[in-house]
C-alpha cells in the first residue's frame, strides 16, 4: 500500500520532464498508473468483503508518533476505488481537454500529487499521517484551482479555497492531537479500542468541535460552503475529480471514519444533522439560482454533501447504508456531469445554461451520457440514483429524531435537484440547435470516454445492484458502524412509502423544471447571501484583518526612533523594576560616611558635566563637557587603583573628542525638535532607568564580593603567567580570547569608517 501511495508522488516528480520529452507516451502513462491502482483495489474487494483487513506499517517519525501505517477496510476501499477509477478517467479526459497546452506536464504533476495524497488520506491509519495527506490535498487543490492563474478570479478562488480548508486543517491538527492525548495513540485502530475513555475524556467536546470544523470546511458545509462554487474557476477535470468525486468527500470520510470513535453523543449527532440539513437545503436553492453550469453543479454537490453529512450524523444503520450508497452514486453521476460540462465549455466556450441549447445534434454521445447521468441524479429507475433515493427516504423515515421534518426537507431538496438535473443534463441538449462560431471537429474520444463509462456504470449498477452491494457497500457500511453488515440492494421493493415519496419528488421536480425561470427569480429575490452570507463574511474578515494589520503596524513600527527607545525603556523599567522592588525592597542607602572630599568632588564634576551636556545649546560645549566626563572617570579609576584603565580612558577620550571635533563642523546647529511635553515624558522614563540602575548597583554589591576568580588571577599572574601587572596579564593571557575579539571589533570599525568615507552611494541596490 505504501507503494500505491508513494508511486503517485514519485511519478509526479518525473512527469513534467517526461512530458517535455515524450509527450504522447506520458499521456498514456499517467492514465496507466491510476488504472493499475484501480485494478489492484478492485481485486481486493473480495478479501475485504470477506471480512479481511489489509494493513501495513512503516515508521516515519516514531518519536512524535507519526507512522506511515495504512489500513484497507471497507470504507477506505470504497474511496480508493473511486479515487483510482475516476482518476484514470480524469487523466484520460485531461489529455484531450488540454491538448497542446504547454502546462499539461505541470497539470499532470499536480493531479498526481493530489491523487496520491487522497489515497494516503483514506488509507492512513495514523491520524497525523492522515492530517499530512489532508493538507496535501488542500495544497494541490490550491495549485489546481489556480491552474489558470492569469485570471485574477482564479487566483483569488484558489486562495479562498486554500484558506478556508486550512482553517479546517488547523482545527483538524489540534483535534487530532487532542484525540491522541485522550486516546494515548495516534493509530486509528488503537483509538477505536479506547472509545470509552475518549468519550468520557475532558477533551471530548473540544475534539468533536475541532473535527467537525475540519470536516465542514473540507466538505463545504454551511457556513463554509462558499469556497466550492468559487473553486469552479478550476479546469473541468479538476472540478470533476476534486470538487465532486473525491476531495470534498474527505470531510465526509473523516466523519465516517471517526464516528465509531466519537459518534453517538448528542453534540455529535445534533450538530452534524442540523448543519448537514441546512447545507442540503441551501445548496439546492442556490443551485436553482445559478445559470453557470459549473456553479449549478457545484451547488448541487454542496447539497448532496449536506445529505451525506446529515446521514452520517444520524448514524443509524439505515442512514449509514444510504450515505455509503449515495456517496458512490453521487461520485458516478456528478463526475459524469462535470465532465460533460467541461466538454460543453471546451467546445462552445459558453457555460451559461440559458444560452445553451440543441447540443444533442452536435455531440450526440455526450448528450446521451448526460441524459443517463441526469436521470440517475433525478433518481429515476432503473438507475443507481433511484436506489439511493429509496435508501435515503428509508433513512429519514426511520430517523431517531425529527423524522418528518427531515423527510420533508429531503423531499424538497430532491425535488429541486430533479429540476437541476433537468437544467444541466437536458436543457443544453434540446431545443434549437446552436451555431458554433468555430469550426467544430467533434468531441475527442478521450473526453467522451469518461462520461460514457460513468453513466453506463450508473445504469449497470441500477440494474444489477448486487454487483456492488456485497462487495463494496456492505463492507464500507460495516467499517463505519464498526460491526459487520450484509446489505442487499434491490431496485424495487414493491409499493412502499418510499416509492410514493420518490414519485412525489419526481412530480414536484418536473414542475420545478418547467417553471425554472420563475423559480430562479423567486430564489434570487429572497437571496441575502451576497449581502450577509458567509462569503461576505470571508471578505470582511480578510479586509478587517488587513486593516487591523495596517493599524497595528503603523502604531508599532512608527518610524520614530525615540518612540522605539521609549517603549524599550518602559519595558525595561517595568520588568526589571518590578522584580527589583519586589525582592529587594526600597533602597537601602548605606556607606555615606566613607566619603573623601576629592572623590566626592570628582563625582560631582561628572554629574555637573553631564547636566551641562543635557542642557547645552552648543555642540562645542557638549563635546568639551563630554571630554570632562571622560577625564573625570579616568581620575576615579586612578583613585580606586586602576591605572591601566585610567590610561586607556584618557587616550580613548582624547581620540573621541578629536573625532567628534573632526566631524563636528559638518554637522548642523543644535536644534530643539521635541515639544516640552515630549521632553518631560522622555526625561521621566530616562530618570526611571537611572534610578533603576542605581538600585541595581546597590543591590548587586550589597555584600562586597570575594571573587575567587580575581584572587586566582592575583595569585598566579606572576608565578604562572610571568607578569606583574595583573590587569595586563588578564588581557593578554588569562582572558586573551576576549582581547582577540576586541581587536577584531576595532578592525571592523575601521573598515566601516573607511567604507563610509570612501564608498559613495548611487550605485544600484542589488
Amino acid at each position, binding site marked *: 500500500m505504501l507503494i500505491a501511495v508513494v508511486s503517485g508522488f514519485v511519478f509526479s516528480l518525473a512527469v513534467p520532464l517526461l512530458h517535455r520529452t515524450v509527450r504522447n507516451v506520458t499521456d498514456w502513462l499517467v492514465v496507466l498508473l491510476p488504472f493499475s491502482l484501480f485494478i489492484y483495489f478492485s481485486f481486493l474487494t473480495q478479501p475485504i468483503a470477506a471480512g479481511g483487513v489489509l494493513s501495513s506499517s512503516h515508521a516515519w517519525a516514531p518519536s512524535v508518533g507519526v507512522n506511515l501505517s495504512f489500513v484497507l477496510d471497507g470504507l477506505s476501499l470504497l474511496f480508493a476505488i473511486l479515487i483510482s477509477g475516476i482518476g484514470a478517467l480524469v487523466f484520460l479526459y485531461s489529455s484531450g481537454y488540454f491538448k497542446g497546452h504547454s502546462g499539461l506536464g505541470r497539470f499532470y504533476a499536480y493531479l498526481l500529487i493530489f491523487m496520491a495524497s487522497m489515497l494516503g488520506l483514506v488509507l492512513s491509519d495514523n491520524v497525523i499521517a492522515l492530517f499530512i495527506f489532508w493538507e496535501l490535498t488542500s495544497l494541490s487543490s490550491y495549485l489546481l484551482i489556480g491552474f489558470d492563474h492569469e485570471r485574477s478570479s482564479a487566483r483569488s478562488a484558489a486562495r479562498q479555497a486554500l484558506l478556508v480548508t486550512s482553517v479546517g486543517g488547523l482545527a483538524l491538527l489540534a483535534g487530532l492531537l487532542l484525540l491522541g492525548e485522550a486516546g494515548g495513540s495516534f493509530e486509528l485502530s488503537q483509538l477505536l479500542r479506547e472509545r470509552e475513555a475518549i468519550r468520557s475524556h475532558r477533551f471530548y467536546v473540544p475534539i468533536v468541535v475541532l473535527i467537525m470544523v475540519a470536516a465542514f470546511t473540507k466538505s463545504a458545509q454551511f457556513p463554509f460552503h462558499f469556497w466550492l462554487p468559487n473553486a469552479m474557476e478550476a479546469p473541468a477535470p479538476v472540478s470533476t475529480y476534486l470538487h465532486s468525486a473525491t476531495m470534498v468527500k474527505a470531510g465526509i470520510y473523516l466523519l465516517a471514519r471517526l464516528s465509531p470513535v466519537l459518534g453517538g453523543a448528542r453534540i455529535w449527532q445534533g450538530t452534524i444533522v442540523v448543519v448537514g440539513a441546512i447545507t442540503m437545503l441551501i445548496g439546492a436553492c442556490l443551485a436553482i439560482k445559478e445559470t453557470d453550469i459549473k456553479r449549478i453543479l457545484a451547488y448541487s454537490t454542496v447539497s448532496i454533501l449536506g445529505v451525506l453529512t446529515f446521514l452520517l450524523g444520524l448514524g443509524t444503520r439505515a442512514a449509514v447504508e444510504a450515505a455509503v450508497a449515495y456517496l458512490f452514486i453521487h461520485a458516478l453521476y456528478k463526475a459524469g456531469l462535470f465532465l460533460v460540462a467541461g466538454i460543453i465549455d471546451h467546445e462552445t466556450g459558453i457555460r451559461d445554461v440559458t444560452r445553451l441549447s440543441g447540443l444533442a445534434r452536435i455531440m450526440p454521445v455526450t448528450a446521451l451520457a448526460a441524459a443517463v447521468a441526469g436521470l440517475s441524479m433525478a433518481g429515476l429507475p432503473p438507475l443507481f440514483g433511484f436506489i439511493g433515493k429509496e435508501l435515503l427516504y428509508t433513512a429519514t423515515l426511520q430517523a431517531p429524531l425529527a423524522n418528518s421534518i427531515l423527510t420533508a426537507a429531503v423531499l424538497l431538496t430532491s425535488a429541486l435537484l430533479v429540476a437541476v438535473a433537468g437544467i444541466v443534463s437536458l436543457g443544453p441538449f434540446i431545443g434549437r440547435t446552436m451555431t458554433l462560431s468555430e469550426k467544430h471537429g467533434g468531441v475527442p474520444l478521450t473526453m467522451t470516454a469518461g462520461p460514457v463509462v460513468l453513466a453506463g456504470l450508473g445504469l449497470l449498477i441500477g440494474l444489477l445492484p448486487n454487483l456492488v452491494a456485497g462487495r463494496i457497500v456492505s463492507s464500507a457500511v460495516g467499517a463505519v458502524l464498526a460491526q459487520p453488515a450484509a446489505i442487499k440492494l434491490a431496485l424495487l421493493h414493491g409499493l412502499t412509502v418510499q416509492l410514493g415519496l420518490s414519485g412525489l419528488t419526481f412530480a414536484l421536480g418536473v414542475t420545478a423544471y418547467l417553471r425554472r425561470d420563475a423559480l430562479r427569480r423567486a430564489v434570487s429575490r429572497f437571496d441575502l447571501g451576497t449581502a450577509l452570507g458567509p462569503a461576505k463574511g470571508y471578505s470582511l474578515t480578510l479586509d478587517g484583518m488587513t486593516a487591523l494589520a495596517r493599524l497595528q503596524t503603523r502604531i508599532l513600527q512608527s518610524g520614530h526612533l525615540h518612540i522605539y527607545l521609549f517603549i524599550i525603556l518602559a519595558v525595561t523599567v517595568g520588568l526589571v523594576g518590578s522584580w527589583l522592588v519586589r525582592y529587594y525592597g526600597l533602597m537601602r542607602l548605606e556607606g555615606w560616611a566613607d566619603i573623601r572630599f576629592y572623590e566626592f568632588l570628582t563625582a560631582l564634576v561628572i554629574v555637573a558635566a553631564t547636566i551641562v551636556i543635557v542642557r547645552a545649546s552648543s555642540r562645542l560645549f557638549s563635546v568639551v563637557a563630554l571630554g570632562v566626563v571622560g577625564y573625570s572617570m579616568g581620575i576615579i579609576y586612578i583613585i580606586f587603583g586602576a591605572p591601566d584603565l585610567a590610561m586607556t580612558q584618557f587616550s580613548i577620550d582624547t581620540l573621541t573628542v578629536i*573625532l567628534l571635533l573632526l566631524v563636528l563642523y559638518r554637522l548642523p546647529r543644535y536644534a530643539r525638535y521635541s515639544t516640552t511635553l515630549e521632553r518631560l515624558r522622555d526625561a521621566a522614563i530616562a530618570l526611571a532607568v537611572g534610578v533603576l540602575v542605581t538600585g541595581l548597583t546597590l543591590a548587586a554589591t550589597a555584600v562586597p564580593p570575594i571573587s575567587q576568580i580575581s584572587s586566582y588571577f592575583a595569585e598566579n599572574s606572576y608565578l604562572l603567567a610571568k607578569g*606583574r*601587572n595583573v590587569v*595586563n596579564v588578564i*588581557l*593578554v*593571557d588569562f582572558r586573551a580570547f576576549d582581547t582577540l575579539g576586541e*581587536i577584531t571589533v576595532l*578592525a571592523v570599525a575601521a*573598515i566601516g569608517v573607511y567604507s563610509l568615507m570612501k564608498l559613495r552611494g548611487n550605485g544600484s541596490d542589488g
Partner: protein
Amino acid sequence: MTSLILSTATTYLLPLLLLLSVYLLLHGHDVPGGGFVGGVVAAAAFALYAIAHGVEEARRVLHTHPRTLIGLGLLTALLSGVIAFVSNEPFLKGLWTTVTLPVEWKLGTPTLFDVGVYLVVVGVTLMIIFSVAED
C-alpha cells in the same frame, strides 16, 4: 596649519613618541601600559605628523596602508595563539622562553599577542583618522 615650528617639532616628535609607545608596549606586562595604550601613542605620533605635514605625507612615512597593519596585527595575535598547537597545548596558551641578548629578556607568546594588539590599534586609529581627515 602647516607652521614651521609644528612641522619641525613633529619630525622629531615622531621617533620619540614611537619609542615611548614601544616602551609602553613591552613593559605593559609588569607596569601600567600595554599594547592598547602603546598603540594609541604610536598612532597619535602619526596623527600629529599628519596634522603638520598633511595626510599624504603621513601615509608616505608610514610606508604601508593602515589596513595592512590591521591585518598584520590580527595575524600576529592569531599566530601567538596558534603556536601553542605546535606543542599540543590549547589555543592562546602562554609559552615563555628567556632570551639572553645584552640583557636578560623574557619572551613569550603573550608578548607577541600584545604586539598584535599594538599593531591593530595603530592601524585602526590611523585608518579612521586618515579617512576622516582626507574628506
